[in-house]
């Protein structure tokens, strides 16, 4: 008996086994909190299921309904695409411009960096969502400030189908700080000798930016683009609190629609199918972004 315990002990201390033991939390967690839930929901996506009654197998009915019998699905996909494709590029452009402004260090740079970064840190909170809702309300800050300039101050930014989505887009762009920090870090890695050589050759600052800075930043831009597009597709809290999809579903994000189907209309099986379609869409977009990579991302050495 003592021998087997000693043998197990000895085995556990072998390097290759010890590596597995250390990785065990992830192996268990990955199976228990990702793979199993995904499989459970895959099963339910083929069922009529509303949490209260046991699931009934209906085959691909849910998927057929998504693509042929649910105009709201297309609407939410469109809204989500619009949001992601407006907010992500704008956010990256802002981040890059501000990073370029801040790359030359002055005494005040740490303070500026803090001010620009702060919104990214608290932007996901409920407090900011509530604040945003009140800022763009009819009697909110924006209209009051516009009033100071003698402009129309009764416009309902959140009540108009053209502007409501932009309230959410502006909130997303406002949080450009973390991308800015990443750009700053990569900008500092570009060797000064490249710019010196370009100066000697008489290249203007403008052409230095296009021919040195931007190409060398493309890997960073690419990485940010992929991560943020995915995240853009999954925005939930801000939409859920600020607009709840109103007016007329013009801001109804896919994730919020999924939530409604599952927890407000109790079409849980249908919502499970929606989640799988979402995963497919995200996979396709990621694949697409990676496919374009070789056309514009610089991957040579320095």
């Amino acid at each position, binding site marked *: 008996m003592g021998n087997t315990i000693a043998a197990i002990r000895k085995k556990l*201390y072998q390097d290759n086994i010890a590596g597995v033991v250390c990785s065990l939390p992830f192996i268990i967690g990955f199976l228990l909190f990702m793979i199993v839930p995904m499989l459970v*929901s895959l099963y339910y996506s083929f069922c009529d299921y509303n949490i209260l009654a046991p699931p009934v197998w209906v085959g691909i009915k849910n998927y057929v309904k998504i693509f042929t019998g649910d105009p709201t699905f297309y609407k939410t996909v469109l809204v989500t695409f619009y949001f992601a494709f407006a907010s992500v590029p704008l956010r990256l452009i802002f981040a890059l411009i501000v990073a370029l*402004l801040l790359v030359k260090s002055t005494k005040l740079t740490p303070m500026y960096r803090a*001010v620009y970064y702060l919104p990214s840190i*608290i932007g996901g909170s*409920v407090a900011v969502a509530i604040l*945003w809702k009140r800022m763009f309300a009819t009697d909110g800050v924006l209209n009051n400030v516009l009033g100071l300039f003698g402009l129309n101050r009764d416009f309902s930014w959140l009540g108009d189908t053209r502007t409501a989505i932009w309230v959410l887009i502006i909130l997303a762009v406002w949080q450009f700080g973390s991308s800015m920090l990443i750009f700053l870090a990569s900008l500092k890695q570009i060797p000064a000798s490249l710019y010196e050589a370009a100066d000697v050759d008489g290249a203007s600052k403008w052409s230095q930016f296009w021919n040195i800075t931007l190409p060398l930043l493309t890997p960073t831009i690419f990485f940010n683009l992929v991560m943020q597009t995915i995240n853009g597709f999954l925005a939930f809290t801000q939409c859920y*609190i600020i607009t709840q999809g109103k007016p007329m579903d013009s801001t109804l994000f896919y994730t919020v629609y*999924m939530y409604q189907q599952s927890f407000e209309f109790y079409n849980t099986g249908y919502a499970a199918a929606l989640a799988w379609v979402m995963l497919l869409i995200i996979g396709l977009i990621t694949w697409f972004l990676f496919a374009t990579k070789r056309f514009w991302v610089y991957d040579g050495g320095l």
Partner: protein
Amino acid sequence: MKKKNQSLKQVIYLVVVSGLGILMIYPLLWMVMSSFKESNTIFTTAGQLIPSKFIFDNYVNGWKGFAKVGFDTFFKNSLFISVTATVGTVLSSSLVAYGFARGRFWGRKALLVAMLLSMMLPAQVLMIPQYLWYQKLGWVGTYYPLIAPYFFAIQGFFVYLMMNFIEGIPNELYEAARIDGCSFYGIYARIILPLITPALITGGIFSFIWRWDDFLSALLYVNDSSKYPVSLALKLFSDPGSSSDYGAMFAMATLSILPIMLIFIFLQKYLVEGISTSGLKG
């Protein structure tokens, strides 16, 4: 002439950068300042930033909370959830990162791929799958879904962050420890953990902020008002009907981001480092 041009450039730079900075920070200033205004004057004076008289009634009124539960309870709940989940995240992620970085075993590559996948698969896609699964486990209505998963290193971001640090530790240190008779686990406890303290702090800070802000899982899994964390309580507090006291709402909103603001002010160095070195979004 050239000098004059230079200083003009500097002035323009200062105006642009400061102006943009004020624009960035203005919404927050407005929220904080509004919390000190008399509740019924907030929107009539929305264009004016500084209150004509600073009052604290909003904080007193808001602190009472709603449905007979005060904000002191909500803050305690949030603190408990965030701290426990963060401890779990830091412990499990550092151990797994060590296993990934230093272990040489069959299937390691596959696990790395799985970790990358889990990083690209955020909570919202898993929202419904996880809910169905936790319901089967009988976890709905408890704190388990908000805490337990974090003890299993499910957030690839943290594993990745710590792996970067561990891989930067020179090999000689391992070999020296080996010669002194340290086991694989001993090296983790005696060498790795102390050496990656900065990464542990950075990870801990990010985890705390994310858990503190987390709204979605509270919305899904917590149904008893005495168990609400601040995020969910604030949302319900702000809903029309339960309160039209905007002053109290702004006061509680301000308090809810206070812990994060304090972290930001005092530990900014770690946040910036975490973002810049891992190159990941925070």
